[in-house]
């Protein structure tokens, strides 16, 4: 279906490239900013470094407020799968870590590290890997990750993930197309730093081992084509390809199509069609990271538009607030009715909501157009179904159908029309005669669908949880019923049989266990008495206590001692009780120290009650003559004592019944 490797090489060598459908030709406006060399800016008063400047997750913050950081020092970790670190753009003090307006259309607050520069601009220790060919691949990928490099072309995908792939790549495509009007940052970079770009490509080639490298540059940048051709001329595998100027030729999907005729599958990656693409800026950053050890802390930003009196390209540190850049380009609001600054190009860029918005890794341009230059759109008119949008769509979608269904919130149908294949290039809205902000409708529809899906997933999870719980409860209930049924059956059986062999055996076993336990208890009781008298030495005498009080702290010792005391007391008590019981039982039957372990508690309670009853009887008998006035109280006490005594009696009776039954069972044996 698609052209094979040889055919592609053949066609590229004769400049017979493919084309992508649709596309538009907006005025280029590159010459506004691409004629002067890249300038370096003075440091701003404050840096705002958001910890997430790429697609994925932000890493864990490694610094605290008040810390002094050096230029290039990592501020966040690359601890998670899709996280890349950010670095201090200069040396200075971390003044604040908190929410700050983000470089996002919403301008919503984002976790940001604020750094006040000390003016020294002192580097941290840099670790270059100049002899990278001798390092294992893993080290290089790790170094790229540690340098905080994510795609500088616009999407901001973490570079180390792409570079670390183990896939067969036929074409490593270096994207220097820069198809958006106005922007010239890649153009200037290629003109001035072609050699470093070439070094970056070398490193990528070492990592990815492609069959061929294609450096694609739009034919409106002849100087860049020239310099890169020179830089790449020694490498036979590298070919600089001039591609026809058409927006959005620099889109990943479109560029792959133009160079190879292949289409990246809708749910696939460029690697699925043997391609991998990096932006020229990313190559430059990789070269910096490997050859110099420098992390990504600055990038080129184009300052352009008629509202800039001095449009140009500048090296801007990441985290620089755009107000600093605006003044560097002599921005004046006189040509704008209301101030308007676009981050990115006129087709896909977004208007920033605050002048404190920081420059981030994907900020390639600040566009401040005069009102005449890029008039703000009027209200949309009705769609006249002219299909100009469909003719402009590079993805061969039907934008007006998507628009109908997005607007009507018929998202299912919108998805049938492949809404999610829209790359939001804006070509459709650019040509729409009714000035309908089509892309805006698609974004909203996509966001709504994502929210719906998330909610659906949440609901689904909740449903599964609920059902699992219901099932568990039901199971437990059934189990309980089953147990009860069995127990009832067993009781019935035993009553019917009036004692079975099995039961006797159990009883015997229980009796043995009990005897053993008592012996043990007695022994422990003795130990406890010792600890009781000498709490200080409890650590040596009581095995359990020793374990507990290994910690040197005094408090713990005391606690241990208290515990030991308590245990000793309890044991002593239980011993006493069991002794009591023994005597009780002896009275009934010689061999009847058979009490189930379950009943032990009951026994101790019984013992306590017995004691209380004795006490109270004593109290009542001795106190009543003396305190006749407290007759009432005494009577109450007497009643309680009587009740207790009765209860005790009853319990004892039961006990005796049980033991008698047991002994009977035994005798039946």
């Amino acid at each position: 279906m698609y052209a094979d490797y040889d055919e592609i090489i053949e066609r590229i060598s004769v400049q017979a490239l493919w084309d992508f459908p649709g596309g538009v030709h907006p005025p280029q406006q590159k010459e506004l900013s691409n004629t002067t060399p890249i300038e370096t800016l003075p440091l701003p008063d404050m840096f705002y470094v958001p910890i997430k400047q790429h697609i994925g997750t932000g890493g864990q913050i490694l610094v605290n407020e008040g810390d002094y950081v050096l230029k290039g020092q990592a501020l966040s970790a690359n601890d998670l799968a899709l996280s890349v670190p950010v670095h201090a753009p200069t040396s200075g003090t971390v003044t604040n870590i908190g929410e700050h307006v983000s470089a996002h259309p919403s301008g919503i607050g984002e976790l940001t590290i604020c750094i006040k520069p000390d003016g020294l601009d002192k580097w941290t220790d840099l670790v270059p890997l100049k002899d990278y060919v001798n390092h294992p691949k893993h080290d290089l990928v790790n170094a790229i990750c540690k340098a905080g490099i994510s795609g500088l072309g616009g999407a901001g995908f973490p570079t180390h993930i792409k570079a670390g792939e183990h896939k067969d790549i036929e074409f490593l495509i270096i994207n220097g197309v820069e198809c958006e009007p106005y922007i010239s940052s890649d153009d200037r970079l290629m003109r001035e730093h072609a050699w470093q770009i070439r070094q970056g490509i070398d490193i990528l080639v070492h990592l990815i081992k492609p069959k061929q490298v294609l450096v694609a540059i739009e034919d409106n940048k002849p100087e860049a084509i020239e310099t890169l051709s020179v830089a790449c001329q020694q490498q036979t595998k590298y070919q600089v390809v001039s591609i026809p100027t058409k927006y959005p030729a620099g889109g990943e999907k479109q560029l792959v199509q133009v160079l190879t005729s292949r289409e990246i599958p809708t749910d696939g990656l460029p690697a699925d069609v043997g391609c991998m693409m990096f932006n020229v800026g990313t190559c430059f950053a990789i070269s910096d990271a490997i050859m110099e050890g420098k992390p990504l802390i600055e990038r080129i930003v184009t300052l352009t538009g008629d509202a800039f009196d001095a449009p140009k390209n500048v090296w801007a540190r990441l985290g620089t607030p755009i107000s600093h850049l605006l003044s560097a380009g002599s921005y004046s609001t006189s040509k704008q009715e209301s101030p308007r600054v676009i981050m990115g190009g006129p087709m896909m860029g977004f208007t920033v909501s605050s002048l404190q918005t920081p420059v981030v890794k994907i900020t390639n341009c600040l566009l401040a157009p005069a009102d005449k230059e890029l008039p703000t759109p009027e209200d949309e008119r009705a769609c006249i179904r002219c299909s100009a949008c469909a003719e402009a769509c590079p993805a061969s979608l039907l934008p007006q159908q998507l628009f109908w269904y997005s607007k009507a919130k018929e998202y299912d149908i919108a998805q049938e029309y492949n809404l999610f294949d829209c790359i939001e290039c804006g070509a459709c809205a650019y040509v729409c005669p009714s000035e309908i902000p089509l892309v805006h409708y698609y974004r909203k529809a996509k966001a709504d669908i994502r929210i719906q899906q998330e909610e659906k997933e949440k609901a689904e999870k909740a449903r599964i949880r609920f059902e699992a719980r219901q099932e568990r409860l039901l199971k437990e209930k059934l189990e309980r019923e089953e147990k009860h049924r069995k127990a009832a059956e067993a009781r019935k059986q035993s009553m019917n049989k009036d004692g079975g062999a099995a039961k006797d055996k159990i009883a015997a076993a229980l009796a043995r266990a009990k005897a053993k336990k008592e012996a043990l208890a007695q022994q422990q009781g003795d130990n406890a008495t010792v600890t009781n008298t000498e709490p200080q030495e409890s650590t040596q005498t009581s095995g359990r206590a020793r374990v507990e009080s290994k910690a040197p702290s005094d408090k713990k010792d005391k606690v241990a001692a208290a515990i030991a005391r308590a245990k000793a007391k309890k044991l002593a008590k239980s011993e006493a009780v069991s002794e009591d019981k023994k005597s009780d039982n002896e009275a009934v039957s010689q061999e009847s120290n058979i009490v189930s372990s379950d009943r032990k508690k009951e026994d101790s309670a019984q013992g306590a009650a017995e004691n209380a009853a004795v006490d109270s009887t004593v109290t009542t008998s001795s106190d009543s003559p003396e305190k006749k006035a407290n007759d009432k109280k005494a009577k109450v006490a007497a009643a309680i004592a009587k009740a207790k005594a009765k209860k005790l009696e009853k319990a004892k009776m039961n006990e005796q019944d049980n033991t008698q039954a047991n002994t009977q069972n035994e005798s039946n044996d």
Partner: protein
Amino acid sequence: MKLTLKSSPHHHNRRDTGQVMRLVIYACIPGIIAQTWYFGFGTLIQVFLAIVTAVVTETIILELRKKNTERVIKDYSAVLAALLLAISIPSFAPWWVIVIGTFFSIAIVKQLYGGLGYNMFNPAMGGYVMLLISFPMQMTSWLPPLSLAEQTHGFIDAVYMVFTGYTSTGFNIEQLRIGVDGVTMATPLDSVKTDLSQGFTLTEAYTNSIFSGIYGQGWAVVSLAYLLGGLMLIKTKVISWHIPGSMILAAVLFSGLFYLVQPDIYASPLFHLMNGSLIIGAFFIATDPVSGATTVKGRVIFGAAIGLWIIIIRVWGGYPDAVAFAVLIMNMAVPLIDYYTQPRTYGHKSS
């Protein structure tokens, strides 16, 4: 400082709906000039009446619907629809014909369906068919080209004719229709249809004085003038070639097939192209974006089917011409066509 927030893209090519409509209107000018030249000033009066009626009707309805009237009127869609209807009807038709027709086009066919962008049928053709069915007499009273007419008539005559039914010198429409040979003249398509139904061959039918060769006098030039305007529209990318191209090709192929088998009974493709409103229909009527197919493949199918219907109705139907019927029939099929002709999206295997 408070910054303006707008959604991307911030760039827009400066051709809005009003401009598109105006370009189509400008492209009609060569054809209107030719029509006036051959059939008198009645055409201009019809155009004027239609535009006034359309703007008034549209304004009233937009006010009733509480829309931004000024902005919508400025999209020129009502003006264009009125213009297309006006050039489709006989130049000396009474004033109330065009007023009723335009009102119907704008109020019923367009606004009742929700206004521009929502109308299922082509407004001009909806109005035309309503008029043709309701007032067949007035709608078929085409004049002979001035060069062939017994009576000449100027602008004042045209005004009188349209508003009173008589010229300033007292002639009525039937008198005006009498040609130099003293016979009431029909349109070329009409004439051929009548002759064929009476058992004449085509060669005999072409001897009628309205013809020079197989071309109806005046009519062929008018068609060529609209062709010129249509090509201008394609050149300026206001319309794509798909609908007119496939429509003309289908008409030519289909009529050519019959012509090859029986050239005595079936007219040649060139006859079909140059007479009647096939050209104006192909470039100006069927290309109405609102009521037409939207996908590329769909447009080819849409155009071809219209071409086919035109020949079928012209050859076997009761009416001499059929552009309006063919367009309305295919308007109904548009949703179906669009649905089954979706292009293959990038990265998908098949549509």
